[in-house]
């Protein structure tokens, strides 16, 4: 089925077209969402919302870009919205915990001593790196994640973000510099003198 036929099938709400859409773009959608969210279960849940959005908005797709690029745009927007929601929820949870007197920050003081295994250390490193990436300005984060995690060429990233090729290069360059600074803060043992 060609892209035009697939789009027509989705517009007519045909089941086989939905099946092909999911089979063709499932991995792209889930993986990209996962790179932004850092959690596979969340990425899988979000993928359902993304496919619903694709079908609901297919009539607005003017085919000035490829379907793949358009789906990337929806995925990135939805994933970033979810990151923002999680941050907001995190703030409310912390405020709520303070009022209920079970401040999660203090529980560490009473926790039993944990034997630092490689897995635990690796998980901590992952969390720190994910936090450092989340702290990047939104445009830099999109360009960096699509380039380094999703292996998308700069031209494709320019299409997804609707910006010029030099702008993509500049965003990725600045993202790397900022990330190095963030990581240096997270891992003081690697602090550079630069």
């Amino acid at each position: 089925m060609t892209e035009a036929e697939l789009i027509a099938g989705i517009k007519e709400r045909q089941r086989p077209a939905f099946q092909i859409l999911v089979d063709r773009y499932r991995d792209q959608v889930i993986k990209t969402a996962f790179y932004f969210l850092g959690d596979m279960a969340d990425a899988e849940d979000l993928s359902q919302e993304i496919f619903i959005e694709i079908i609901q908005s297919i009539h607005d797709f003017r085919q000035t870009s490829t379907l793949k690029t358009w789906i990337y745009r929806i995925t990135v927007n939805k994933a970033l919205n979810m990151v923002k929601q999680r941050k907001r929820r995190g703030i409310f949870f912390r405020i709520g915990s303070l009022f209920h007197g079970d401040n999660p920050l203090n529980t560490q003081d009473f926790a039993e001593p944990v034997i630092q295994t490689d897995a635990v250390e690796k998980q901590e490193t992952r969390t720190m790196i994910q936090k450092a990436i989340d702290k990047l300005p939104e445009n830099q984060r999109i360009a960096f994640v699509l380039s380094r995690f999703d292996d998308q060429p700069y031209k494709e990233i320019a299409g997804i973000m609707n910006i010029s090729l030099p702008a993509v290069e500049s965003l990725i360059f600045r993202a790397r510099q900022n990330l190095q600074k963030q990581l240096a803060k997270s891992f003081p043992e690697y602090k550079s003198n630069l």
Partner: protein
Amino acid sequence: MTCKDFIRSLEERHDRNLTEPERSDMDRHSQECASCRNQLAMMEKLGSFIADSKNATPNPFISTRILQRLEAEFAFPDAPKKSPWPLLLKPVALTLALAAGLLIGTLTTRPSSETAQVENQDAAQFDELKKDLFIQEFVDEDKKISLIH
């Protein structure tokens, strides 16, 4: 190689394959400079994080879950429609069976007035019989007395 050159090469190595002299320059510089060695270690941590993320795989049944959600959300005009007949036939068949049961019941049992009439007849016949027996006994007794005398 200066520290600035090292960092530039560190950034560029993701976009292009570094030449052999560039790589050996980086190795030499990282052995001499602790700060750049730390930068390299940090970037390797990031590289390993990215590699791990790329290896993550979604649930194998995710397609089914997504399609089920889409089916719940959207109506498929080409989906095979279920006939409403089995649903309608059930109560109709039940009503018919109930009606048939009532009819059979009505036909096989007598109306209550008729039953009462038969019962009255039986009681009258029994009374007649009892009366006959009493008279017979009285007559027999009478015969016995007359014989004694």
